[in-house]
């Protein structure tokens, strides 16, 4: 009986932990740097995910996200910004730039081709 209780408590704790880690833990924000050319740029390394994965940009200024894909794993071979109608193939071990100008404040999710890897673009 005791072992059942222990197992139940452990299992429930694990469920809470899993959900906290993936959904609610605090993520680091990275702000885009505004270059002299008037473009805000961020370099993002793609390897099993996006690093950094939460990016803060300013409204109305052209954004250039430089994705460096540091792997050949199929999963990350495309990056999709659904709200901006961008779907770009990322070549392995190459930097691919995604450019657009966010006109509205808000949070925009970007994902891999299948929506598994996720990052967020916060427009302020």
């Amino acid at each position, binding site marked *: 009986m005791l072992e059942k209780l222990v197992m139940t408590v452990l299992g429930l704790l694990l469920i809470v932990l899993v959900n906290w880690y993936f959904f609610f833990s605090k993520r680091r924000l990275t702000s885009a740097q505004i270059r002299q050319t008037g473009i805000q740029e961020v370099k993002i390394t793609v390897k099993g995910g996006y690093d950094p994965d939460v990016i803060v940009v300013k409204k109305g200024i052209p954004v250039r996200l430089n994705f460096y894909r540091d792997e*050949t794993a199929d999963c990350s071979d495309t990056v999709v910004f659904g709200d901006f109608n961008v779907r770009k193939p990322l070549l392995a071990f190459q930097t691919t730039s995604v450019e657009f100008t966010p006109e509205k404040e808000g949070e925009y999710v970007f994902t891999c081709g299948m929506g598994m890897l996720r990052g967020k673009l916060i427009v302020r």
Partner: protein
Amino acid sequence: MAKDLVCGMDVNEREAAGTSTYRDKTYYFCSAACKKKFDEHPEVYIKSDEGDSEEDEEGESAPEETQGRGEKKESEQKLERMDLPIVGMSCASCASTIQRSLGSLKGVAKANVNFATSKATVLFEPQLVKPEDFISSVKKSGYEVGIASLEIPIQGIECASCVQKIEKALLLTSGVINASVNLAMGKAKVEYLPAETSFVEIKKSIESTGYKVLEIGPKGEIEDVERVVREREYRKLKMKFLLGAILGLLIFLGSTRNWFPWVPSFLSNFYVLWALATPVQFWIGWQFYKGAWGAFKHRNADMNTLIAVGTSAAYLYSVTATLFPFFFKKGGVRPEVYFDTSALIIVLILLGRLLEARAKGQTSEAIKKLMGLQAKTARVIRNGIEQDIPMEEVLVGDLVLVRPGEKIPVDGVVKEGKSAVDESMITGESIPVKKEPKDEVIGATINKTGSFKFQATKVGKDTALAQIIKLVQDAQGSKAPIQRLADVISGYFVPIVISIAIATFIIWFNFGPSPALTFALLNFVAVMIIACPCALGLATPTAVMVGTGKGAEKGILIKGGESLETAHKLDTIVFDKTGTLTKGEPEVTDIVTTNSFAEDDILKYTASAERASEHPLGEAIIKRAREKKLELQDPKEFMAIEGHGIEARVDGRSILLGNKKMMKKREVDVSGLEAKAEELAGDGKTPIYVSLGGEAAGLIAVADTLKENSVQAVRRLKELKLEVIMLTGDNRKTAEAIARKAGIERVLAEVLPEDKVHEIKSLQSGGRRVAMVGDGINDAPALAQADIGIAIGSGTDVAMEASDITLIKGDLRGVVSAIELSKRTIRVIKQNLFWAFFYNTAGIPIAAGVLYPIFGILLNPIFASAAMAFSSVSVVSNSLRLRRTKL
């Protein structure tokens, strides 16, 4: 503090052991020896000094670099001149905006922007201002500078210092805006102004540093590198799969010896099974761990996580049972191993990935095909000299020579020569198109028969092909609204599945039958394995990609997933008349003669008379005469009477051509022809009376006729249960005559161009979903208002903003094809989503064991993995079926 250029020491100016003045500049030295060395070869040290200062200053803040450039020019006062091609200027006032902005830069002596040539000419002091500043100034004014970009493979770059050396040399080349050398790739990426420098110059400057430039390969070279890597990985995956399959089979036989009594008994030894399963788990299955860890670090969870955790659970349980069987016995459980489960799951999923990789590669084939169409080089004639140059260097205005069998490199207008061109790759039209001077040619099409010269009108990213590629890429990147739910789900899917799996474990452990631990474990693994959201994620994008790609192959450009989805719901389709249903240019339809004249004679005389006129109706008559190979003469005493017609003398005979008023004015009796003329007018044609030598000779009827395939297209649209409506500014009589021929019952005639939008709106307010078919320029507002705007294109004008669907060629059957394609694509998406949802929503509870209490059904984790592996393959294959669609 100054720097001793010879030894590099810092020297206090006042305490220097020696000074030298070279080119008006004073240099300080720490010792007489250094001064002596400097005096012998000052340029050596100055050069390296310039180098050093640039090395320190990278990127944006490099004022020294400019200074270096200035010194190199030997004069601080001398102005440099630079031409910048400007992109996006649409009016003369844009030119003055740019000019003001450039002129206000510090160091710019004079800036002049020419709207006609789209060029900015800047006179500047190189030490005060850099070309980069011009570019950002132009950009700030809202325009772009036409910068060309090249990737140049260089042989033998081995160290970081080589990189700097080459970059420096490139940046010193005038006209080069930006240069960066990638050591790993062995390539330099150069951005330059094509008007200022060329590939040859750039190549020279690289080779001056002692490195060799390799031949520039085809544009898709990077993709090729990727492909090579991919293929290598594919082979590796295949090899791993085969090895895994052998090991998996042995493990399977060993674990199920009671089914196969002939299997040697040692195979079912736990330790042997362990030994066989370990390489499968950690070598063949390593990619799952790697992927899972990568995702975990980013607080992501993907299918790798599920597989890694699921198989590890089975594997570790089995290892424990092998090493500590007494622990299980003590708890009253028979120690069992599940090495077959962990190993076979991995092998099956690898198989799924192999198949999926192959299928997925095919979904983007259309765009690869389009990219592969691009020509690599062009033969241009500059200053009378023929030269082969890379595609990227062709400028607007260049005269390009094309020989039979060659690809036309860019868009342009034929200047000299005749040929037939195969345009099937762009327009889908299979019959070669004749080209004569003044005809447009499209880049990437193939010249068949003759040589000709043409002037480039669109290059680089403005060519039709580049626009098509961009349109298709954008379309493939867009999302169909139908996908939204799937997107939301797949984002939360994996952590939730893990939670369900843990809950399954707890429930089976607490309430399940004995052996509870075994059941709990197996069901935990089954839930983890079956729940791959891959199929869900692939359902829509693969179908949209294949669908839009298929369309592009046939000259149908679809803006995106949303357009596809709306197009399949249409119920009304409105056609513009002129130029859409009809050819848009009048032609001779009937020739009526009075008894005394032959048809060809009438045609010959009227056509000869019309040679002096510029009326479009006259052109139609001349065209018909030419088709009949009639010999035409120059008319004499030609006179045009406005609103009436023309009169002239040909071959000594007086000719009158025109309407009834004209005939009345010249007192020609046409009473015998009037009935026929009215009949022709009733058919929507324009009858022209002809009189020869003061006698009524006949009638020539001219009309804008239907395109060959309009009737067929309308019929097929009706078969698709769409109501077809014609919209035109023409008078009702003419409009109805044409509509009758096209098979259209409903006509909205006498609609002013600006009222077309209202007509569409009023149809929509009646609850209809309306498509409007028209040309992209005059009908743009109506196209934008319609639920689906279908623009009929011609030639190189593919960038049609207002439309959702663009047909590259004017054939209206494309409208039918586009609607059919959208219907099929949406059907495939729905099938995919159904299977994916069904699979995941039904699969998880079954794997968790909900059917067990009633039916005693449990899902073996091995079956779960097989099902999962094939679910994504089946979704992708289903999408690929669209490729075989006949349009």
